[in-house]
C-alpha cells in the first residue's frame, strides 16, 4: 500500500512544479480522442472519421488507433460519475499514468513472488515504483499508450507465469484477457506475442515439456488471438503478418510434441526414434516451404519496417529515413542505462546469473525476457521502457538473495552460538547494500525532478536572479487561435504541432503527429521552403487561413522550426526533387546559415521571412543575434512579406501566426500591391514593437 503511495506521489512532481496539464505531443491526441469518446457512444468512437486533421483528406481515426487507453479512462469517468464523483476528464487523463503505475507495482510484486518469494516481491515492487526508467513515461500528464501498456505487460506476465506453473485454465485465460487488453492499448503487444512462444520453445528444447505447458499455452494462444482480432486496427494481422508467425508456429509445434509424447508412451524407444526423426524433417520442410510460398503469394505480410530495423540496425537508415529520424528510435549509450536505473543496472546481470543457478521453468521466462530486451533497449531508446521492469525483478531477486544470507541475525540472537566476527561481517555487508538502497531513492527523486517532469508545452527557465520562470508561449498562441479565428479555420504548421493545435486550439490542421501520409507532410514542407508567391498558391489550394511557425531565436529555444527546416526540405525534396533542392539552402561553402551570408533560396523561403520578420527592428538598430544559431541578422537580410499578414506573435516570440491575405479587389497581384504601398511610404511603420522583458517575470 505504501509502495502504491510512493509510486503515485513520485510522479506528481510535474503537477506540483507546473500544473495539471497534458504533456508533449501524442498525449494531446489521446486526450482529444478521450473527449470524443465520452461525448459520443463507443460505436461512434470506433467509426470516428476525423475531418479536422489532415485537411482535406481527413483521417479514419477510429480504425487507426489503439482504443485501450481512451476506453479505460472513459470507463473510469463514467464509473466515478455514477457514484456521484463528477471529475473533469482532464484530471482523469493527467492522473491516469500515476494511478496505473501503482497497479504496476502490485502486479510486479505478485510476479516476483512467483519467481522467488515475497521478500523479493516487495523489493521489486518498491523498485518499479520509483525507478526513473519507468517514471519517464508515466509522470502525471503523460497520457500515452505506454502509461497503461507496462501495467498490462506485467499483469499479463504474472498470469502467464501462474498459468504455466499450475497448468490452470483460469490463469491462462486471464493472461489471454489481459493480452487482449494490451493489444487494444499499445502496438508493443507484439513483444508478448513473441516472448511467450519463445519461452515455450525454450522449455521444449530443454526437454521440459509437460501437459501443464500444453494446457496453458493453448488456452492463452487461442483465446488471446481470437480476442485480439476484434480490435479494428489489428484485424487479421495475427494470422497474416510474420510478426505473429512465431506464436502460430509454436502452437503447431506444441501439438506435434504432445503427439510425439503420446506416441512415445506407446512405442518402444528405438522405433520411436526413427518415427521422430523422419516426421520432424518432413514437418520442417513443409513448414518452411509453406511460409515462403505464402509470403511469396502475398497471403502473409512480410515483416514490418520497424521490426527489420531492430535486427538489421542499418536497415532503417537506408530504407526508411522517417523511422531513423525519430529521436525515440536512437541507440542508447551506457550513461542512459545508469541514469534510468541507478544501481539496479549492476544487480541486473547478477540476478540473471542467480536465476540460472535455480533454473525453474518460470526462471527461463525471466532470463529470455532479460536477454532479448537488453538487446532491444540497446538498439532503440524507447524500448528501455520494456527492459526496466525486468531489471527491477532480477535486481530484486539478487538483492533479496544477498539479504537472505546477511540479514539473517538468528545466530547473533542465539546466546550459545553468538559470534562477533560473523555478526560484524553481516552488519557491514547488509549495511552497505541498505546504504545503496537509500542512495537509490535519492537518485530516483533527483532524476524524476530534473529530467522527467517537464511537460514541454510549458518550458521552465531561470530568470537572472535564479528564480524559476515559466515560458508559456505555446498555450498563449493556441488560446489566441481558439478565441480569434473562425471555428473552421485551417492552420498550416509543421506536423510536430498538429496534435497540440487540434487539442488546445481546436482548429483544423493539415498534418499532425500521426504521420500516415508522407506526401501531405511534404506539401507543407514545400510551402514553407518556397518563395512567397508559390507558397501562397500552394496554401490557397489547401484552403489554409493561417500559418504558424515556431521561432526560438529570441529566447534560445533550440527545437524551433528553423532547426527542423532541413527535415522539411529533405522530405519535400523526396517528392519534388526538381523544385526543392537541399543544396540551394546552404551557402556555397556548404554551411547552414541564416545571417547575411545565407543563400538566396533560404532568404526567399517563407519560413525564413516569417521567422525573422521585424526581428532586427526589435533591437533598435543594435545587433540582432539569433540566440539559437548565434548569427547576427541585419535589417537588409529580411525580405518583405506581401502575401501574408502577421496577426499574432507570442510574448517571447516563440509562436508567430500569419494570415493569408485576401486577393486584391483591383485584380493586382499582392506583390504589386505591396510595391505600390511601399512606394507611397504607407507600410514603413507598422505596429509598435517592444522587446519582452525576461527579467521581470516570476
Amino acid at each position, binding site marked *: 500500500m505504501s509502495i502504491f503511495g510512493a509510486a503515485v506521489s513520485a510522479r506528481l512532481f510535474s503537477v506540483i512544479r507546473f500544473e495539471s496539464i497534458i504533456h508533449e505531443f501524442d498525449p494531446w491526441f489521446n486526450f482529444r480522442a478521450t473527449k470524443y469518446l465520452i461525448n459520443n457512444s463507443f460505436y461512434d468512437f470506433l467509426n470516428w472519421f476525423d475531418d479536422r486533421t489532415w485537411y482535406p483528406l481527413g483521417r479514419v481515426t477510429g480504425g487507426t488507433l489503439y482504443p485501450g487507453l481512451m476506453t479505460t479512462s472513459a470507463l473510469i469517468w463514467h464509473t466515478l460519475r455514477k457514484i456521484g464523483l463528477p471529475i473533469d476528464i482532464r484530471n482523469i487523463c493527467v492522473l491516469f499514468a500515476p494511478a496505473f503505475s501503482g497497479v504496476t507495482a502490485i502486479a510486479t510484486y505478485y510476479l516476483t513472488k512467483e519467481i522467488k518469494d515475497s521478500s523479493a516481491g516487495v523489493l521489486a515492487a518498491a523498485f518499479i515504483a520509483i525507478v526513473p526508467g519507468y517514471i519517464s513515461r508515466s509522470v502525471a500528464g503523460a497520457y500515452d499508450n505506454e502509461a497503461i501498456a507496462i501495467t498490462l505487460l506485467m499483469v499479463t506476465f504474472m498470469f502467464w507465469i501462474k498459468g504455466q506453473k499450475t497448468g490452470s485454465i483460469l490463469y491462462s485465460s486471464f493472461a489471454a484477457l489481459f493480452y487482449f487488453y494490451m493489444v487494444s492499448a499499445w502496438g508493443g503487444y507484439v513483444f508478448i506475442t513473441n516472448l511467450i512462444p519463445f519461452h515455450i520453445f525454450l522449455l521444449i528444447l530443454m526437454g521440459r515439456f509437460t501437459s501443464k505447458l500444453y494446457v496453458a499455452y493453448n488456452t492463452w494462444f487461442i483465446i488471446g488471438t481470437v480476442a485480439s482480432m476484434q480490435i479494428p486496427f489489428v484485424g487479421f494481422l495475427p494470422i497474416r503478418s510474420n510478426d505473429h508467425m512465431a506464436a502460430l508456429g509454436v502452437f503447431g509445434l506444441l501439438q506435434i510434441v504432445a503427439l510425439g509424447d503420446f506416441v512415445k508412451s506407446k512405442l518402444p524407444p528405438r522405433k520411436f526414434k526413427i518415427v521422430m526423426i523422419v516426421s520432424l524433417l518432413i514437418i520442417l520442410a513443409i513448414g518452411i516451404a509453406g511460409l515462403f510460398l505464402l509470403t511469396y503469394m502475398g497471403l502473409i505480410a512480410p515483416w514490418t519496417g520497424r521490426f527489420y530495423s531492430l535486427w538489421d540496425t542499418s536497415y532503417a537508415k537506408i530504407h526508411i529515413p522517417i523511422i531513423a529520424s525519430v529521436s525515440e528510435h536512437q541507440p542508447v549509450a551506457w550513461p542512459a542505462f545508469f541514469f534510468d536505473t541507478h544501481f539496479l543496472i549492476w544487480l541486473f*546481470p547478477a540476478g540473471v546469473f542467480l536465476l540460472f543457478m535455480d533454473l525453474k521453468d518460470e526462471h527461463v521466462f525471466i532470463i529470455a525476457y532479460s536477454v532479448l530486451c537488453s538487446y532491444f533497449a540497446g538498439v532503440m531508446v524507447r524500448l528501455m521502457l520494456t527492459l526496466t521492469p525486468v531489471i527491477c525483478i532480477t535486481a530484486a531477486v539478487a538483492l533479496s538473495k544477498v539479504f537472505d544470507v546477511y540479514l539473517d541475525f538468528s545466530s547473533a540472537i542465539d546466546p550459545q552460538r553468538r559470534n562477533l566476527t560473523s555478526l560484524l561481517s553481516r552488519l557491514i555487508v547488509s549495511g552497505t547494500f541498505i546504504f545503496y538502497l537509500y542512495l537509490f531513492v535519492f537518485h530516483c527523486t533527483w532524476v524524476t525532478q530534473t529530467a522527467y517532469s517537464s511537460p514541454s508545452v510549458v518550458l521552465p527557465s531561470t530568470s537572472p536572479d535564479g528564480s524559476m520562470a515559466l515560458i508559456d508561449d505555446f498555450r498563449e498562441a493556441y488560446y489566441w487561435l481558439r478565441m480569434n479565428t473562425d471555428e473552421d479555420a485551417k492552420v498550416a504548421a509543421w506536423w510536430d504541432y498538429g496534435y497540440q493545435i487540434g487539442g488546445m486550439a481546436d482548429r483544423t490542421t493539415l498534418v499532425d503527429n500521426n504521420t500516415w501520409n508522407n506526401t501531405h507532410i511534404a506539401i507543407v514542407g514545400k510551402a514553407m521552403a518556397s518563395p512567397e508567391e508559390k507558397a501562397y498558391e500552394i496554401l490557397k489550394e489547401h484552403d489554409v487561413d493561417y500559418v504558424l511557425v515556431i521561432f526560438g531565436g529570441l529566447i534560445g529555444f533550440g527545437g524551433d522550426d528553423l532547426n527542423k527546416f532541413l527535415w522539411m526540405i529533405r522530405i519535400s525534396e523526396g517528392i519534388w526533387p526538381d523544385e526543392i533542392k537541399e543544396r540551394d539552402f546552404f551557402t556555397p561553402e556548404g554551411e547552414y546559415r541564416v545571417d547575411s551570408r545565407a543563400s538566396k533560396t533560404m532568404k526567399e523561403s517563407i519560413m525564413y521571412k516569417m521567422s525573422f520578420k521585424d526581428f532586427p527592428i526589435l533591437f533598435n538598430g543594435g545587433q540582432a543575434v539569433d540566440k539559437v544559431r548565434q548569427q547576427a541578422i541585419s535589417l537588409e537580410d529580411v525580405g518583405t512579406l506581401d502575401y501574408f499578414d502577421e496577426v499574432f506573435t507570442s510574448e517571447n516570440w516563440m509562436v508567430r501566426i500569419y494570415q493569408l491575405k485576401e486577393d486584391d479587389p483591383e485584380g493586382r497581384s499582392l506583390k504589386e500591391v505591396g510595391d505600390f504601398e511601399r512606394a507611397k511610404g504607407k507600410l514603413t511603420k507598422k505596429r509598435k514593437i517592444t522587446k519582452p522583458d525576461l527579467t521581470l517575470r516570476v
Partner: protein
Amino acid sequence: MKLCIYSSVLTILSLCTFGALALDNASLLKEARKSSDNIINVSGKDYETILSGHRDANILVLFTSNSPQFGCSLCAELESEYEALVSSWFHDHPDALSKDDSEKALFFAKAMVKSPQNIPKIFADFGIEQIPRLHLLKAGSNNMLDSEIVDIPADKDIARVQHLINALKSATSITDFEVHEKVNWGSTIITAVSVFIIVFLLKKHTYIATYLLNSRLVWGVLSVSFIILMIGGHMFNKIRNTMLAGTSKNGEIIYFIPNDFQNQFAIETQAIGVVYGILATMVVTLAIGIPKLGELYKGNKRRSVVEASFSILCALFVYMFFAALTYVFNLKTGGYPFQLLKISSLFH
C-alpha cells in the same frame, strides 16, 4: 639489400638535382617501389624533389592522418580504399604506364600528418585546411602547386574506389583503369581451419560438448556477458560507428567524453563492461559463493573468520567499483549530486 642501395643512390641523386628538375617516370617508379604498396611517401621535408618541376606523369596525392588526435574517421576509411585503388592500378600496370597510351603515367603519393603540433611543410604549401583531401597533379605542368582537388565520393568501400577511378579516368584521360578487388584469403583460410578444428573436437569429445551444452554455468556466463555488453552500450558503438577514444583540446587522449550524456567512445563500453562484470560477480559471490565457502569449512574453527573476511572483502570491492562508476558517471553528466566518496580520498 638491393633496395637499400637503390634508395641511397636515389637520395644522393635527388640531392644533387634538387630544385633543378623533377623525377622522370622511371625514377618515380623507383620511388613508388620503395614501399610495398607502391605509394610514394611525400610527408617528409624533401617532398619537393619528387613533386616540383616539370612532370610527365599524373600524380594523385592523398593528404590524410591516422593519428587519434585528429579523430578523423573518414581518413581511416580512406586508408584501405586508397590502397585498393593503388593496387588496382599497379595490378594491370606494373610500370605505372597506361597500356593504351604509354605516354600517360599515373602515380600515387600520400602525405601524412602525425600531430597538430608538427604539420609537414607540404600541407602548408598546398594550403590544406581539411583532411582528408585528394589533389591531382596533372602531367605536363611545371608548377607543383598547379593541382586540382578530387572530390571524395560519399559511398563506402569498393563503390568509392570505383567512383574515384571514374573521376581519375576523366581527369587524366586514361582509359584502362579497372577495379581489382583483393580477395582476402587469410580470413577464408582461418575460418575453414577453425571450423575444421571445432568439428573435429566435437566429434572426438562429444561428451564434453554435450556437457558444455547442458551446463547452466556456460549458458549463464554467456547470457550474462551478452547482457553486460548490451547495457554497456555496445549497440550504440555498432550503429554509430564510434571512435575507440578521443582527444581533448590539448591533444591528450581521453577515454570518456566529458559532459556528454548521450554519447560515448567505444572504449567506454569496455571499461563499463568490466566494472559491471566485477560488480555482478561480487554480488553473486556474496549471495551463493560465501555460503558455499562456509560449507567447505564446516566444523572448522576458522569458519566464521574466513566467511567474515571474504564477505567484508566483497562488500569493499562492491563499494570501490560502485564509487568508480559514480565517478565516471559524474564525468559524463557533470554535477551529479550522489557521487560516492572514493576510499582513496579518505587518506588524503
